[in-house]
């Protein structure tokens, strides 16, 4: 058992690309947790996907031993947090497990929206915050200006800010000293009944759920019977341990410590992030505050390209869900795509990650339909229904009222991009509620949006109109009624349910034309004429024609060409196989998602 006085639990708060992972790498190196030779760049981001995208999806934690300049040994627990707005609840729980945070800000860029959201979270949780101005080695670095920004925006004293370049190894030792001297030690009582905060968990096929916990009070050891306070599920602890960074079993975890616990838990649905673990026989009176179940907000259909792969998809989704219960899934069927799943996600990035993991880790070829939000419909009978899929929308005469979810978005943007950003927001039906200058050159725009408008491509468009200089954060406001209609796409007179979308009536005409135009480009010529139409109810609002293919022949094929020509034919055949046949028309997979990015 480590003396709590010698424990420091901290996390790193930073915007994407501001150097969080590199700083973590340097800290690991200097404390000897990972030898430089073994060091892969971005050690903490373990999933391939995380490393490729340069972001953290799952929380990681690592215990480090640090010999301070006063020659005292400290145990440092670095809790790495997910870095995307989709995962802000997970971030809040990781932050709740810490007593301090490093606020890493790129000295060439300044404070960004997500940094702010997370820093406020850290402040709410009473964390000691140490500003670290990173990338000071770069020519564009202006640490004074950025420090002022931090003081002005966040109200943090930056006199103790550390100037660092994680890439060049500058300021790392100072950062470690600040951690031990400025961040308080955890205060929990080891003798009190157990209260352990779950801040992440994942599924391991040998051990079941591996649960990351911070012991707030009491202690946790193998053999102990524990209870999950939100679900009342009871388990017997098998093992307790820490990551340093490889997993190491230890005899017990006690107050102030961070580590993992396994208890033959079959699904991590039972190890909810934010929940409190207590001892069955000596339970704590109250759970730790802040727990709430996560709720998906973005929905899309996921279907196998080859309908025969449905069972394979089903087992892949079930297995992936063991590892990521934040997404939801329900069987659905589409006339166009056959059997698949309507899945719910925390956000768009989460959706892309799940889809990519399914394809990559389970070798599936998938079609995903356009993301949609969930709508509340009051039927003329007075009944209230919730739909996650445009195909479920009742016919217009049955609808009394439709309500769509609204969100509040804060956009942080350099002054010179205000014009284009406001134009984009208008286009997306945004209602401006506030605008103020953070500094002379940076502005915060606050808007209320129908969430639906943000789901498709808002973030990409925002990045492109601001050359990547804008950042956003959002929160839900609730449902508001709106004049929405269902736009159907017909291919050779057959409605394709998977291509239906729900749009605002004022935009239906434009979207219909746009959609038909894109399909016209994306659907290859077939052996027969293809007519693409967009309609609302029985009114056709747009139409395009793809003329039949009349010529596709290889002029020359002699002895030396046979293999090559055969391979070309095989490729043509494969290409056709990857398309989805609807009626007799072959439609490329990307049609179902990409064309909707207007």
């Amino acid at each position, binding site marked *: 058992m480590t003396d709590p006085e010698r424990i420091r639990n901290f996390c790193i708060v930073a915007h994407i690309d501001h150097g969080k992972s590199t700083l973590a790498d340097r800290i690991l190196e200097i404390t000897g947790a990972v030898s430089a030779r073994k060091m892969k760049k971005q050690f903490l981001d373990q999933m391939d996907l995380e490393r490729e995208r340069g972001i953290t999806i799952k929380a990681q934690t690592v215990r480090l031993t640090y010999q301070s300049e006063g020659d005292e040994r400290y145990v440092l627990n670095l809790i790495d947090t997910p870095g995307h707005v989709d995962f802000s609840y997970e971030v809040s729980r990781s932050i709740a497990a810490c007593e301090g945070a490093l606020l890493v800000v790129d000295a060439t860029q300044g404070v960004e929206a997500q940094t702010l959201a997370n820093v406020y979270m850290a402040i709410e949780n009473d964390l000691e915050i140490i500003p670290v101005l990173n990338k000071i080695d770069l020519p564009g670095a202006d640490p004074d200006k950025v420090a002022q920004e931090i003081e002005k925006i966040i109200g943090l004293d930056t006199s103790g800010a550390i100037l660092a370049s994680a890439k060049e190894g500058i300021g790392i030792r100072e950062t470690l000293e600040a951690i031990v001297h400025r961040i308080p030690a955890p205060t929990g009582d080891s003798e009190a009944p157990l209260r352990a905060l779950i801040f992440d968990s994942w599924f391991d096929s040998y051990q079941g759920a591996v649960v990351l916990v911070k012991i707030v009070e009491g202690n946790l050891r193998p053999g102990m019977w524990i209870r999950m306070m939100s679900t009342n599920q009871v388990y017997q602890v098998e093992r307790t341990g820490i990551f340093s960074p490889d997993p190491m079993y230890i005899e017990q975890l006690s107050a102030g410590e961070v580590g993992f616990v396994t208890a033959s838990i079959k699904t991590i649905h039972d190890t909810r992030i934010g929940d409190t673990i207590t001892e069955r026989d000596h339970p704590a009176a109250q759970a730790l505050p802040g727990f709430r179940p996560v709720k998906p907000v973005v929905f899309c259909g996921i279907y196998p390209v080859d309908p025969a792969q449905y069972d394979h998809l089903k087992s892949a989704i079930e297995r992936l869900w063991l590892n990521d219960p934040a997404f939801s899934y329900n069987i659905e069927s589409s006339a166009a795509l056959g059997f698949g799943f309507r899945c719910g996600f925390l956000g768009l990035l989460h959706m892309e990650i799940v889809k990519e993991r399914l394809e990559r880790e389970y070798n599936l070829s998938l079609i995903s339909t356009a993301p949609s939000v969930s709508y509340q419909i009051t039927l003329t009978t007075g009944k209230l229904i919730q739909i996650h899929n445009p195909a479920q929308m009742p016919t217009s005469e049955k609808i009394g009222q439709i309500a769509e979810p609204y969100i509040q978005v804060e956009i942080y943007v350099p002054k010179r991009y205000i014009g284009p950003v406001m134009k984009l927001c208008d286009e997306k039906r945004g209602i401006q509620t506030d605008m103020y200058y953070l500094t002379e050159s940076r502005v915060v725009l606050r808007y209320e949006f129908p969430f639906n408008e943000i789901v498709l491509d808002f973030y990409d468009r925002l990045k492109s109109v601001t050359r990547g200089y804008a950042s956003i954060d959002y929160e839900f406001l609730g449902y508001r009624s709106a004049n929405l209609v269902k736009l159907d796409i017909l291919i050779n007179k057959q409605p394709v349910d998977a291509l239906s979308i729900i749009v605002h009536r004022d935009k239906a005409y434009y979207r219909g034309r746009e959609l038909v135009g894109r399909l016209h480009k994306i659907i290859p010529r077939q*052996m027969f004429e293809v007519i693409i139409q967009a309609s609302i109810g029985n009114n056709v609002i747009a139409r395009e024609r793809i003329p039949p*293919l009349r010529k596709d*022949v*290889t*002029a*020359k094929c002699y*002895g*030396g060409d046979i293999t090559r020509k055969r391979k070309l*034919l095989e490729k043509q055949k494969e290409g056709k196989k990857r398309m989805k046949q609807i009626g007799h028309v072959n439609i490329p997979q990307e049609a179902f998602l990409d064309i909707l990015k207007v």
Partner: protein
Amino acid sequence: MAGLYIHIPFCKTKCPYCDFVSGPFPVEIQKRYVGALLREIETTSQEAEASCFDTLYIGGGTPTVLPVEWLVSILEKTFDLFSWSDIHPEVTIEANPGSVTERGLRELRAAGVNRISLGVQSLSPGGLKVLGRSHSVSDSLSAYRYAREVGFPLVSLDLIYGLPGQDVEGWHKDLEGAISLGPDHISCYELTVEGDTPLKRAVLRGEVVLPDEETVLEMTDLTEDLLARNGYRQYEISNFAIPGRECRHNINYWENGAYLGLGCSAVSFLPPYRERNIRDIFGYIESVRDTGRAIEEQEVLDTEARFRESVTLALRLIRGISLPEFSEKWRYDPIIYYGDTLKVLLARGLLALEDQHLFLTREGRRLANVVLSELV
């Protein structure tokens, strides 16, 4: 049936649309190449798989850019060392009108060549210019005359249509011109914009505009109709001949018969093995010098894959597939084997079934890749 193919990778100039292994090379390299070729003839002729051949085809490139004596020595060695099913096998040489002389053709004829395929390509000066050909229309006319004068019994003309700037009328004139010469055989190829060629780049840059699809379809229809009216029977997608004067060597390819290919990049098919020689001229020369052979790549297809490949090749032939012959040879009945896929193609009128033969319809020939990609 088995064919022997010899590749000569040299040309006077490289044409902008060509993606074959060929081009201009110094005579010194040509000499070393011919040396290697003679060596490869020796080594392969001693191997068991080199059985008895029915046809010989010297292609390229432009074989006739080589000094005629070298070609004659290649021919002599080939006739000497391999066995032949007939004392007068079909022996074809490809020639470019700009690279033949009456003397040269006379010597080739005397050495046993009985079929000449002239790369006329176009009979209009504008056509030759956009194709970047180094010969003139009158070169083509003289070459044809020489070939007849020295007594070639089989003369074939190669033509290309769908040229940038060409209209249906222009192609009509080319075809009429070719027919008026009275060749035994005419090959008409639609211009294909291949991989990485100057033509492709020019098209991508928009400097060159090809005729639209409608026009090319009209040209194709015209080709088939006009040649048929003049006694040339179409026997393959791009090949037409006075009945009985088809190219037997090429028919063997479409029947997926055996062949031995010599020279760089040449392909051999000695079932079930298909082998390709080293593409690079220098690599080929070196390999033959060291080992007598130059095989770089081998492909082995199982029976079913060979059956499927044979179907896609045989359907290029106008007569198509003889169902009884295929069923007997492969032990797969195509009708049963392809089941519904075939039914759909028949129902759409792309394939037809008559007298136990399965063949592409006229519409099917225009969309051959669509049909064949279903069957491959």
